[in-house]
């Protein structure tokens, strides 16, 4: 349970305040409602590159990080396909510094050419480090365009290719800023050792004079229903074969989301989960196997991925996975198994409430989904899921024609 108060400035900035006086720290979290899904297909990776540029100085403050470190603060940010989230942790007594910094970069950036040039390179190195110079690193660069043909989820947050990042110009940066980095497209959450009245005063002082800007109406092409199974085989320089099966699932606000999430827990959460018990321990066919939901706001992917052991072909591996998926379709889960995954959800939610940063991020994310109050109803929604729900959703999702299967085959590896 996270208690909070909420108010909105005249320029449209939404503000949420969560008081927690057990800590001497404060968190200032700003979520901008823009992610890789809002990019043009010819300019992918831009939302994330832009996140880097937000640290390159703002209109009145040449250096973002220094003044924050000076008052004992720390910051970071992340970009997903849905959102871009910036956060600061600092001693609550120095809260105003965070307001000064965040409001200035919402007002306007410095748009420094040098920063653009350096961050293009930094992001290219990030691209290499995470996606190109790692075994299996490019899996998601391949899997996304297999599963999504129309929706912008077909490219990864980092972008389709290095070239899109290399080609970004200052004009693009400026127009992206004015389109998405407006008060009305942002959610500010302040949490920790703060008082609502002080936060109100500071917010009005620092954010009120920022022009509201144009409103952005998201109108993304929706992914049509997949009608036939998709498959790809790729040969790569890895030692061990790997298999990925991606199914289309519901969106984050669907009433079936929690059921789908529990289904992935039944299959793969913890050492007692079905896939691990059956395929790693009993049949000793895989060294690792996982099932998870991508957790995106629009239509999700339900992914099963695993690495078969030596002597197990990808074909055998795939059919073993399907055996397990079919089991959950044909017979309902027993009460104890369903209760187990619900208990785990409950304790996980409690753990996430230990940290003011996690609480602030959760409030911002749920507010972006529509209403921060929904966070507090989440456990209740999980508790309501029945064995019939699980079976029904499994039957809807685990269909061959709803799947994209990627065989990631090692060149002369051990599985042959």
């Amino acid at each position, binding site marked *: 349970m996270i208690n909070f108060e909420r108010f909105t400035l005249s320029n449209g900035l939404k503000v949420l305040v969560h008081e927690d006086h057990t800590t001497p720290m404060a968190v200032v979290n700003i979520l901008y409602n823009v992610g890789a899904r809002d990019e043009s297909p010819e300019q992918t990776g831009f939302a994330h590159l832009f996140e880097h540029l937000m640290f390159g100085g703002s209109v009145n403050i040449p250096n973002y990080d220094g003044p924050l470190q000076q008052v004992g603060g720390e910051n970071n940010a992340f970009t997903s396909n849905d959102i871009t989230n910036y956060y600061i942790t*600092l001693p609550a007594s120095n809260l105003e510094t965070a307001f*000064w910094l965040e409001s200035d970069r919402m007002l306007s950036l410095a748009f420094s050419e040098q920063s653009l040039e350096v961050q293009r*390179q930094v992001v290219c190195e990030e691209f290499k*480090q995470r996606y190109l110079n790692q075994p299996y690193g490019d899996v998601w660069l391949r899997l996304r365009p297999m599963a999504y043909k129309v929706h912008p989820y077909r490219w990864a947050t980092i972008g389709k290719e290095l070239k899109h990042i290399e080609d970004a110009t200052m004009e693009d940066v400026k127009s992206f800023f004015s389109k998405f980095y407006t008060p009305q497209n942002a959610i500010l959450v302040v949490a920790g050792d703060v008082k609502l009245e002080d936060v109100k005063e500071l917010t009005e002082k620092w954010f009120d004079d920022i022009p509201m800007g144009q409103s952005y109406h998201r109108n993304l092409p929706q992914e049509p229903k997949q009608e036939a199974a998709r498959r790809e085989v790729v040969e790569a320089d890895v030692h061990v074969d790997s298999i990925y099966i991606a199914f289309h699932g519901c969106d984050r606000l669907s009433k079936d989301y929690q059921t789908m999430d529990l289904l992935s827990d039944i299959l793969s959460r913890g*050492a007692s989960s079905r896939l691990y018990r059956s395929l790693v321990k009993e049949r000793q066919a895989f060294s690792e196997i996982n099932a998870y939901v991508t957790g995106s706001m629009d239509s999700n992917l339900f992914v099963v991925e695993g690495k078969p052991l030596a002597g197990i072909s990808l074909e055998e591996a795939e059919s073993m996975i399907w055996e397990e998926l079919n089991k959950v379709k044909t017979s309902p889960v027993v009460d104890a198994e369903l209760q*187990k995954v619900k*208990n785990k959800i409950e304790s996980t939610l409690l753990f996430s409430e*230990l940290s003011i940063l996690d609480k602030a991020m959760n409030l911002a994310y749920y507010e972006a989904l529509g209403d921060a109050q929904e966070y507090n109803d989440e456990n209740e929604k999980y508790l309501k899921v029945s064995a019939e729900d699980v079976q029904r959703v499994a039957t809807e999702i685990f269909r061959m024609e709803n799947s994209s299967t990627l065989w990631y085959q090692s060149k002369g590896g051990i599985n042959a």
Partner: protein
Amino acid sequence: MPNRLEAPPYQAIGDLELVQPDAVNHSNGLRTFLFHSEELELMKFEFIFENHYEKSELPILNVALSSMLKEGTTTRNSAEIAEEIDFYGAYLMPEYSFDYTALSLYTTRKHVDKVLPIIADVLMNSTFPEEELETYIRNNKQSLQIALQKNDVVARRLFYKNLFGTNQYGAVADLEDYDTLSRAKLYSLFEQQIRSNNCTLMIAGRVDQELQDLVDSLFGQEWAESKTAVGNAIDLPLRSDGQLVVEPKEEALQSAIRMGGITEGRAHPDFPALQFVNTLLGGFFGSRLMRNIREDKGYTYGIGSAVVSLKHTAFMTLGSEAGADVTNATLVEIEKEFKRLREELTTIEEVDLVRNYMQGNLLGSLESIFSHVDKFKAVYFSGLDLSYYHYYHEVLRTMTPERVQEIAVRYFDFDKLTKVIVGKY
């Protein structure tokens, strides 16, 4: 209109208030520390064991011991242990580090009495079933094969090997080493190490008398003591003379860089100052290495350094993955930063910034009672007590550019660092 050109005024960051745990000694030699937090619905139990090393054995046996603890007891098989722990929404996590093996349990307060008996069973009656060991070996061999394709992993392994040599800190497992594992060896290590008198138990959360009695009855009486002392003597190598180890990778888009050297640990009076200088050099986003090599040159996504305090020694380490075409340029810049640190006096402004950053970071690291446990552990296992943090605070508060240079000259010598490059050089 607010004045946006000037930073708002700010306050100095105060000293920490740390929770002093209650200590309890049980009749079988178990030592428990209790960290009270009345309102919390969650609890953490951390059973910490000093590692026992036989000279002839690789630490691979110790790593396997920690992973295999929850794979079967005289009354529960692996599946039953997993099922019960998961059912109560608990997390059971074995952890292995250079000097200690730990089994951590996170659980809700309401299920403590259901979950703790499982842990008692695991710690007292583990059997290390043959079939589970085979699974462990098979899966870990495969994971290692995959990991060995990562340049940063290869660089880290080469670094430890070259820095520490053949002792337990330097020994890294190769594929065939897994074949030396046996149930008998595991069991004998278990009997030696996973014993009451070699265990320190940290308990955090709502610790009332009832819980204390439960802990004593489960862990404080029947759990046997080890008959022989835990042995972990170590042959420390001579200090490094700056060898360069290169493993070329033709296809690499980036090179993994790893370097470092032996330094002083937490118990040494210079340690907080050493941490200060490390932070300034490479310990945070605003460090010199990050500002120069990432934020000015764009050679890497990240570069960082750290000081690690171990039981028998300590080391400083630095790591990065830099573009293959700029690997040499990155090395030149790293060397320049070390030289600058030793040869030029830093500014008072930079010292202020690093101090405030470190003080804020320390304050922010105390999130819940669980972080108080971590703070206590860090000093307790270095033979210190919580007054260390006041000393630390005082060292930060009184840090000067002269002192930074003095520490840099004494401890940050680029020429003496062991250097590893995996990729293009």
